[in-house]
């Protein structure tokens, strides 16, 4: 009465033996592990921040009070500091980075280009604490003695360039973040520009465009997606950067309009206060800040994606 093995099972066996199915399953498991880690992370952050979520509710996001003594915790100064410093960083690193990438990919002789690229990749590999130390010893005195007094003298009428000058503050943190995000922007933008087919350039040149016109009007728009990608990667680094920022931002949980004033970021306060946080509410408020940083990253990434979609549509509508 022994029945022959069903054909379906045999087929499965054969497919497994051929290896394709095994590879598919294994890689699927690897891919889903990313999803699992993300979901697990959010779940854990959500569960371990239940105390402040219930106590403060949405007030946590809008309160600018951070007082461990009285047990009042609010995230606003940290959200502000994180977004503000990252914005300064991108404002500096995007024009510089994309410009440098255009030079390296389009205009520079190959030998110079490869030498520069080597150094840029080296810069990307420097640990952030090293940037922090360098910032304290070189950037901070430079900002305090030259850059900030100069800005104050020339543009002091604007509120963002007013107030006392310490060398430690939003601007210095933004500049160090710009230096740290720069290699990412350059490196990936350059790759994207190199991917652009030669025909694209030749077509533009054949139509009588100058070298620069061909680069700016034919090559750069073609590599747009890759360049945006590089900016987002830089932004992600800027939002989450901890050590270098905490070493130069001044660590003051107050919202200041002035670029020269000390501030605080989410990652910096978690790193600073977590190990000595006494009491459950205090500790869980720090965890909730982690959750806020996570959500902030998602929101900013989503906005960035919307921006891409919008610009891509507009781009494709053009002839």
């Amino acid at each position, binding site marked *: 009465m022994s029945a022959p093995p069903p054909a379906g099972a045999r087929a499965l066996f054969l497919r497994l033996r051929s290896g394709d199915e095994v590879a598919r399953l294994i890689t699927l498991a690897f891919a889903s592990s990313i999803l699992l880690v993300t979901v697990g992370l959010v779940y854990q952050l959500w569960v371990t921040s239940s105390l402040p979520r219930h106590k403060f509710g949405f007030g946590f996001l809008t309160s600018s009070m951070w007082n461990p*003594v009285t047990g009042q915790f609010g995230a606003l100064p940290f959200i502000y500091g994180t977004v503000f410093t990252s914005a300064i960083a991108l404002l500096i690193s995007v024009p510089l980075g994309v410009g440098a990438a255009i030079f390296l990919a389009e205009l520079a002789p190959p030998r110079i280009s490869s030498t520069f690229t080597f150094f840029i990749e080296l810069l990307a590999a420097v640990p952030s604490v090293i940037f922090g130390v360098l910032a*304290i010893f070189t950037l901070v005195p430079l900002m305090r003695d030259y850059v900030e007094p100069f800005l104050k003298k020339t543009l002091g009428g604007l509120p963002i360039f007013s107030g*006392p000058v*310490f060398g*430690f503050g939003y601007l210095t943190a933004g500049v160090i973040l710009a230096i740290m995000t720069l290699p990412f922007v350059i490196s990936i933008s350059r790759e994207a520009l190199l991917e652009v087919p030669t025909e694209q350039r030749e077509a533009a040149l054949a139509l009588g465009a100058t070298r620069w016109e061909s680069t700016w009007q034919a090559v750069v728009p073609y590599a747009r997606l890759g360049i945006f990608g590089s900016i987002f990667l830089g932004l992600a680094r800027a939002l989450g950067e901890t050590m270098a920022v905490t070493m130069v931002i001044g*660590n003051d949980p107050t919202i200041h309009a002035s670029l020269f004033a000390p501030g605080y970021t989410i990652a910096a306060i978690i790193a600073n*206060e977590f190990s*000595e*946080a*006494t009491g459950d509410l205090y500790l869980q408020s720090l965890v909730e800040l982690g959750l806020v940083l996570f959500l902030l990253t998602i929101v900013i990434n989503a906005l960035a994606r919307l921006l891409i979609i919008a610009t891509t549509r507009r781009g494709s509508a053009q002839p």
Partner: protein
Amino acid sequence: MKKSSFWLGAFGAFAILLMVAQAKVLINAAGATFPYPIYGKWFEEFAKVDPDAQINYQSIGSGGGIRQFSEGTVDFGASDMPMTDEQIGKFKSKPLHFPTVLGGIVPTYNIPGVTQELKFTPEALAGIYLGKIKKWNDPELTKANPGVKLPGNEIVVVHRSDGSGTSFVFTDYLSKVSPEWKSKVGASTSVSWPTGLGDKGNEGVAGIVKQTPYAIGYVELIYVLQNKMAYGSLRNAAGVFLKADLESVTEAAASAAKSMPTDFRVSITNAPGKKAYPIATFTYLLIPSKIEDQGKKKAIVTFLHWMLTDGQKYAAALGYAPLPKDVVGKEEKQIALIQ
């Protein structure tokens, strides 16, 4: 056959290793970073005294030490500040506090053109950190420092940004000497600072002060001793200006010993003695009052006795102030409470 004998041999070797490991009493501890250098030295030296005991210490910070200790993931904890009643309430049997060594906190500053050592009154220090004394030539400062030409520049106030026992002791002191500080700010490992820049660790605060003209900060005595930095003297509760050193810090504990509660949970800032430096603190080991494992209990009790006697001799060389005799005597009595 060959293969199986190899596995048998490997298993045998593993079993012997396990037995050797079993013979040693492994004790895990975690907590404060401030006393880590001396604890490391102690545990290393103690392993020679009692070869059966091995103590692993992780310097994860006082808050983490209290947390791990109350969760029971370590055999004992360590903290720069005593546990609160609320924290103790979570234990079935009350944990014991054993002061180990003392530390002091000193004001350090950077005023271009001023080479003399500055004297600080408690009012001046509180005023500066409250943001009320804004300039170096404030009368509160010039009054205490006759003969020093203090400039009219703005004071750059620097404090710790990381939660730390150092900040706890400093703010505890300010709360004692300034009612305004007590009501507005209070004492904690991290507080809502009314003014100033923050940086991580003693090295961070000292770094900003060194680099920024007209800055003032507070750092641990051990840090300025090791780095040979200049620091100011402070007026103590008896009205004497004192510059911190190991003797004056030990004296703070000695002068507070008479009124010390039996569980040692006490702040010794602003101590009454004439020779007592006002910003001093104990650092504690947190020991459970009931230890089930007899091997561990014996090792911990032996260690505590050794720490209070021979161990104290290592303190001064590493920059820690040793415990005064009165406190050692009281602690010896407390060891008997461990069941």
